């Protein structure tokens, strides 16, 4: 994910420098940028950028306290079952993965020393030596095989069973090397192995509440739905972690989470609500906002196989009806980037920059709706707080629809059991997709004809063939070309509207240093605990 801000020119840069020297308050800064319509690119620590001239040297010590946004009795330290950011952060602190994605989105080696393949079908993984689990057991190939194989067993209830299904064969060549064979060639295996669910656990573990991994912290306390505390792993094979202990819990109420940060009880408040940004800014320089656009989005799905989605003109009309700029500005408070109705976000290397987002054109939308004959009768639109900002987006679309005589009946349903009862089932409903590192995963999960989460029932053989072809080829240029065309097909033919890629904003105290953006999500791809440090 590059630092380039798509339409940010040299002169803008100078302007920002001058403004800061003049002592412009943050508020003017933001105003200036918004007015200028500059789409802030992913991952730039805009506010901190001008300040960190001197090379930062980590400071050891201190207890790090951070708060996520949701926790319940279903919290778990089993990487396969991890479902929320809270679980990911805890897994990152207690376990390690074979690879991890750096700031630029390219996979780096972690527990693996090297991962090679000739035909993208059989891969050999050489493990790092001298790595031990918290209980002293050395890391071996059996642990890796156990950790990857268990995703296939349905009783584990793994979240990435679908993705892991392609790993059909495992062989322990020797104590330190593992050979993985795939069902069909897939060049993205290193990136896939960097996902949180593929953390490496000790062979034969059943009780995961111990958190026995190779990670930077050793579990001291774990109370699901309450909190977790980890202490510094003395014999950690990597340098760090800088802090002595790390306490993580969740405060589900947005304003309370921000207030906890502002009153000094916690050092990091994850995923703060766009509306609380102004409060953090009003507190002056004691606090910093760290923004990452990582490819998480809330989308409006219209099932093409059900009324009214089955009418082509209705889908077309809706794509013109969605006022993407207003959604970004009002619902997301500027913390997002206008989307072009396809899942691969600008943060991703394969993002198709030529595919311009559909302009907001109510007249054309009305023309399509008249052709489809849907004006007048109420069309139910299911929205819920389970998909963040869905209800705000629904109300904005409802307002612009009302102006041209289209009656959208927004139905707010409980977040409880939303994914089970309404998502993928209601004719017109909102969904929310978490970031995935590669287009291949996104397309095979969401848009392939047999995809498990095909939200709009988009079926196209051509698309499926292109997907398989791109997956196997090692030639980057060819892959990029195919993915570009696939993005174009999804944007024009599928029944999903992706108004914007949502930026995730974490608020931190100025004393917390070393936090960087990461394509896998906020809080530095949920692995911040290992890298950050606390200044005095």
């Amino acid at each position, binding site marked *: 994910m590059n630092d380039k801000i798509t339409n940010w020119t040299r002169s803008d840069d100078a302007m920002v420098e001058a403004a800061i020297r003049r002592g412009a308050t943050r508020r003017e800064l933001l105003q200036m940028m918004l007015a200028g319509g500059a789409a802030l690119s992913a991952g730039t620590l805009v506010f901190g950028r001008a300040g960190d001239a001197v090379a930062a040297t980590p400071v050891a010590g201190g207890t790090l306290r951070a708060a996520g946004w949701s926790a319940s009795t279903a919290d778990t330290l089993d990487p396969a079952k991890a479902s929320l950011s809270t679980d990911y952060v805890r897994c990152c602190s207690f376990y390690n993965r074979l690879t991890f994605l750096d700031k630029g989105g390219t996979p780096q080696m972690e527990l693996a020393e090297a991962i090679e393949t000739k035909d993208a079908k059989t891969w050999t993984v050489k493990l790092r030596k001298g790595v031990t689990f918290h209980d002293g057991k050395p890391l071996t190939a059996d642990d890796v095989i156990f950790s990857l194989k268990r995703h296939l067993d349905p009783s584990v209830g793994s979240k990435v069973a679908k993705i892991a299904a392609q790993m059909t064969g495992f062989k322990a060549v020797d104590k330190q090397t593992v050979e993985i064979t795939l069902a069909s060639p897939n060049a993205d295996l290193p990136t896939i192995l960097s996902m949180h669910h593929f953390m490496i656990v000790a062979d034969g573990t059943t009780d995961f509440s111990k958190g026995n991994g190779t990670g930077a912290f050793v579990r001291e306390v774990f109370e699901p739905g309450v909190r977790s505390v980890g202490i510094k792993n003395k014999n950690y094979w990597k340098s760090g972690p800088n802090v002595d202990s790390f306490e993580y819990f969740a405060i589900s109420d*947005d304003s309370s989470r921000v207030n906890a940060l502002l009153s000094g009880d916690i050092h990091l408040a994850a995923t703060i609500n766009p509306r*609380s940004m102004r409060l953090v800014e009003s507190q002056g320089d004691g606090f910093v906002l760290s923004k990452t656009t990582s490819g998480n989005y809330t989308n409006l799905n219209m099932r093409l196989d059900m009324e009214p989605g089955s009418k082509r003109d209705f889908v077309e009309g809706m794509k013109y009806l969605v006022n993407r700029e207003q959604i970004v500005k009002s619902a997301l408070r500027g913390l997002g980037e206008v989307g072009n109705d396809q899942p691969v976000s600008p943060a991703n290397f394969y993002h198709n920059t030529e595919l311009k987002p559909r302009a907001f054109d109510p007249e054309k939308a009305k023309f399509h709706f008249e052709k489809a004959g849907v004006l007048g009768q109420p069309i139910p639109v299911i929205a819920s707080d389970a998909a963040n900002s869905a209800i705000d987006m629904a109300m904005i679309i409802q307002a612009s629809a009302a102006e041209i005589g289209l009656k959208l*009946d927004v139905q*707010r349903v409980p977040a409880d059991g939303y994914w089970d009862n309404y998502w993928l089932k209601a004719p017109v409903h909102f969904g929310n997709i978490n970031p995935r590192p590669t287009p291949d995963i996104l397309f095979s999960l969401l848009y392939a004809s047999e995809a498990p989460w095909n939200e709009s029932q988009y079926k196209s053989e051509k698309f499926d063939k292109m997907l398989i072809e791109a997956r196997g080829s090692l030639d980057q240029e060819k892959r990029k070309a195919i993915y570009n065309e696939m993005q174009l097909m999804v944007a024009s033919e599928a029944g999903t509207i992706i108004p914007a890629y949502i930026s995730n904003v974490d608020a931190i105290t100025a004393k917390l240093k070393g936090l960087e953006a990461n394509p896998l999500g906020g809080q530095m791809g949920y692995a911040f605990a290992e890298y950050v440090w606390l200044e005095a």
Partner: protein
Amino acid sequence: MKMTHSETKSARISGTPLGYRFNIVGMVGLSIILCWALVAIFAPLIIPYPVGEIVDLDYFGPMSGDFWLGSDYLGRDMLSRILMGARYTVGISLAAVTIACFSGVVLGMIAAVAGGWLDTLLSRFLDALNSIPSKLFGLVVVAAVGSSIPVLILTLSVIYIPGAYRFARALAVNINAMDFITVARIRGESTLYLIRSEILPNIIGPVLADLGIRFVFIVLLLSGLSFLGLGVQPPYADWGALVRENIGGLPFGAPAVMFPSLAIASLTISVNLLIDNLPQKIRDRSE
């Protein structure tokens, strides 16, 4: 020491027509309720902007010429949202509190008069209902019946029936021990008659006061339930929901969060003031 009236001479002071004595506090309460009721009825005609339309560039905007009560978190006009919200808060809460208190009081009186196994059965059942948390109850209703305004009203009333029942039953048990009930009973009167015209007139005063308090709790629970997705559908919102969704503006004292709370307070206080100062029928008629 009773005052025998026949032979006392006295100066006739304030007695108003219709034989009722009104006091100002009660009247103030009544007028506030009436004006909110009017707002609830004529809201669609008097709101300056459509409720869902985003009209203000900024969010949590201050009170200004074109947005009398400022703008909310999305930039919609607060005045129109409060006026439209009146219909839900006033309408739903009044309906729910009347149903809850009516059924609670009637069940309470039946239990007191009938006594015996019916009394224990009702009491135990309603005690049990009382300990089921309202969130679980709300979710079950949404799951079983889907959400709509009538369902919301029914859910709110069922949650508050046990309280009204317990209160009314305690009052009715005292009245039930009086001799005039025994006289009516051995006359062969039916339980229904005993309740309707012997017990109810004697407990209507405290029951109304209890209704006032319960109304306040129902207004607040209403916002909790619509937060669950039960009842008031976007873009409309009851006052409690308005406060909850604009809580972000609290640090700046944004009008968007202050005015809905003031609206709720004005409604609840006026209802209780009216109930505490109901006009008394003047019975002191010296002809």
